[in-house]
Structures are given as structure tokens and as C-alpha cells.
């Protein structure tokens, strides 16, 4: 039984209009999911701040390091403003470069806001495919970058400082954890609600008024160029991830192939122009291009693969 059945009843009672009904149902469902899941993730996170993650990672060897880094990336919030402290903090404490990159890929790609929207609008199967593909891309991108021995492409000052990874962080009480999670949840909701509303609104309009399969002839699974194009368009769209997922969920209904949709969403979250600009402070442009190239290739592979499988 669908736990959102009461919401469906409410929407049905309020309006028979397809687009409006869709808008009311999706909005209520997504905001409930956002509040609950962000709260839970924040509680977990209060036990695993980046400093603790670093202590875990600096003890792991290469391959397990990549896997653990990618998994821990899921629960860490990521905004481009924390990219530099994370990068410096990891590398200077002796976490291998490849492992650091695994974390830098997974952290923005698999974030709680994207997960909620995938879960709410695409269902758990697609959400799971997204998480697993994201993890695999993060693990392998990190392993490849580690093998390339590109330490010389990191700005020299990074390696001139070394620090020990032990941090004396302030202890949090149970009450403080709950207060932190509540504040964080409200913060994120305040930040994303306009995007989510606009995204769902435009999505609902498409759902109600655009003919089914309208886009199939441009972006169906037999169009090879759809996946690379989706990845390219996704790069400058980072800040609007919250609004873009509802929108693409409606486009999928109208004939955009599922693999293309997945590739687009991954590109929006994982490849971000502002983040690249900021990373230039600590690494050479060549390394940023290598990083973007490997992750981009992984995303395209995922897109093509699921266009083949999910017909």
C-alpha cells in the first residue's frame, strides 16, 4: 500500500484538473519526503563529520579507500564552498589523491535532495540504479585518477603543508544533534523550495498538456547523440538540481529515454562549473579536465547502458 494514498485522495478531492492535481500531489509528497529524509541524514551526519571521515580514510588502503570514500560521500553535504577545505584537509592528512577524488565525485552526485526527488518522482528502482551507478562511477574515477599518478598537477603549495589528521572536535549531545538536524533541514528546505515548486509546476504543466511521446523522436533511446548532449547541458546547471529533477521526470514521460534522463541528472549534480572554477585554486586546469573527462565518460556509459537495458 502506498503511504501517500491520503495525499492522492486530498489532491483528487481538491481538483479534477490533471496538471493541477499532479502539482498538488507531487508537491506535498516531495516536501514530506524532503523533511523526513534530510532530517535522518543530518542525524547520521552529526556522527560522521568530514573530520571523522578523514580519520577513517587515512587508515584505508587504496581500493577499499575508494569504496569507503564513495560510500561516505553519500551522507556528506556538498556545496562548492566546501570543496577546497575538503580537498586540502584530505590530501594534507595523507589521504591518497585517488581516494580524495572518489569522495569529491560521490559527495555532490549522491546527495539527499536528489535522492528524495528521484524516490518521489521516479520510484525506488530508478533511485537505486542512480545510487549504484553513481557509486561505481565515483569508485572507478578515483581508482583511475590514482593510477594516473597526477600528483604533479596539484598546486605545489598543497603538498608543502602536512597536518596530522587528529582533530579535537567539540562533542555534541543528543539534544544538540537533534537541534543541528532540525536547523539543517529547515535551511535546505528554505534554499530549495522555490526550485522544487517551479520544477514540479512546469513538470505538471508538461504532464497535463504535452502529448505523450512528443519528445521520443528527438530524445528516444535510438538517438545516439541524446546522451552526450544531455551531459553537456547538465554541466552549467548545478545550482538548480532541485528544480531540474521534477522537470526531467515529466520529460521522461514524454519520450526521453531513461538512460538519457539518468545521464542528465548525474551530469547536473556531479559536474559543476562553479566547482571547477573553485578547484583551480588547488590544482592545474589539466587535472580538472582529466577529472571532468573521466566522470563525464562514466556518466555517458551509464546513460547508454540504461538506454539499452530499460526499454
Amino acid at each position, binding site marked *: 500500500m502506498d503511504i501517500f494514498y491520503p495525499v492522492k485522495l486530498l489532491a483528487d478531492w481538491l481538483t479534477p484538473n490533471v496538471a493541477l492535481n499532479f502539482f498538488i500531489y507531487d508537491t506535498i509528497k516531495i516536501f514530506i519526503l524532503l523533511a523526513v529524509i534530510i532530517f535522518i541524514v543530518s542525524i547520521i551526519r552529526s556522527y560522521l*563529520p568530514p573530520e571523522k571521515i578523514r580519520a577513517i580514510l587515512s587508515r584505508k588502503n587504496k581500493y577499499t579507500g575508494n569504496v569507503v570514500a564513495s560510500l561516505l560521500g553519500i551522507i556528506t553535504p556538498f556545496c562548492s564552498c566546501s570543496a577546497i*577545505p575538503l580537498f586540502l584537509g*584530505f590530501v*594534507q592528512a595523507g589521504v591518497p589523491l585517488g581516494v580524495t577524488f572518489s569522495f569529491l565525485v560521490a559527495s555532490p552526485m549522491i546527495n539527499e535532495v536528489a535522492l528524495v526527488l528521484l524516490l518521489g518522482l521516479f520510484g525506488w528502482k530508478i533511485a537505486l540504479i542512480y545510487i549504484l551507478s553513481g557509486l561505481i562511477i565515483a569508485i572507478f574515477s578515483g581508482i583511475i585518477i590514482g593510477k594516473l599518478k597526477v600528483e604533479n598537477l596539484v598546486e605545489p603549495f598543497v603538498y608543502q*603543508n602536512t*597536518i*596530522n589528521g587528529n*582533530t579535537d572536535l567539540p562533542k555534541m549531545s543528543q539534544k544538540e544533534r537533534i537541534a543541528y538536524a532540525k536547523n539543517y533541514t529547515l*535551511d535546505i528546505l528554505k534554499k530549495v523550495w522555490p526550485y522544487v515548486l517551479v520544477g514540479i509546476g512546469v513538470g505538471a504543466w508538461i504532464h497535463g498538456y504535452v502529448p505523450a511521446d512528443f519528445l521520443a523522436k528527438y530524445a528516444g533511446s535510438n538517438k545516439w547523440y541524446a546522451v552526450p548532449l544531455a551531459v553537456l547541458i547538465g554541466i552549467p546547471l548545478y545550482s538548480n538540481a532541485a528544480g531540474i529533477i521534477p522537470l526531467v521526470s515529466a520529460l521522461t514521460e514524454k519520450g526521453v529515454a531513461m538512460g538519457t534522463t539518468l545521464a542528465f541528472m548525474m551530469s547536473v549534480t556531479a559536474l559543476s562549473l562553479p566547482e571547477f572554477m573553485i578547484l583551480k585554486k588547488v590544482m592545474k586546469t589539466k587535472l580538472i579536465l582529466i577529472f571532468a573527462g573521466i566522470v563525464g565518460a562514466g556518466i555517458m556509459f551509464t546513460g547508454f547502458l540504461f538506454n539499452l537495458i530499460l526499454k
Partner: protein
Amino acid sequence: MENKTTKIQVLGSGCPTCKKLFELTKQAVNELELKTEVEYIADIQKIIEMGVMQSPVLAINGKPAITGFLPDVKKIKEAIKKFI
């Protein structure tokens, strides 16, 4: 209030949240009637050396007291009071 030598610093990467924390900390120090200047440090390396990887950071006497989120003034006052 008695005021021993307390060093209060706000460290940030220059993001809006960090500047907000700086403002709130100054307000907290005023309300507590301390005679300490609040220092703002935008050098990320300093944050890393403190062992922290999140910004902003409120450090008291060189130790991180609040990291990674923007607290309210009440919380800042509590953190400062623990050290004086």
C-alpha cells in the same frame, strides 16, 4: 563580567555564511560585554591546520568550538561562556 584573555576567531572561506557568523559573533561578544575583538580569518590553510574541514569555524583560544554550520546568537554565547 570578568574578562580573562579570550581569543575569539571566526574562520571562513569568504562565503556568505561565514560573514554572517562573524557578524553574529560580534553581536554575541557585545551582548556578553566582553572586551575582546573578534578576528575574521579568510585563510583556508588556517582552518585545515586547526584540523577542521568545514567552514565556517568559530574558534575560541585557538580551538574549534562550532564548525560547519551557522548557529544562533544564543548558541554562540553558550560556546563563548564555556571558555571564560
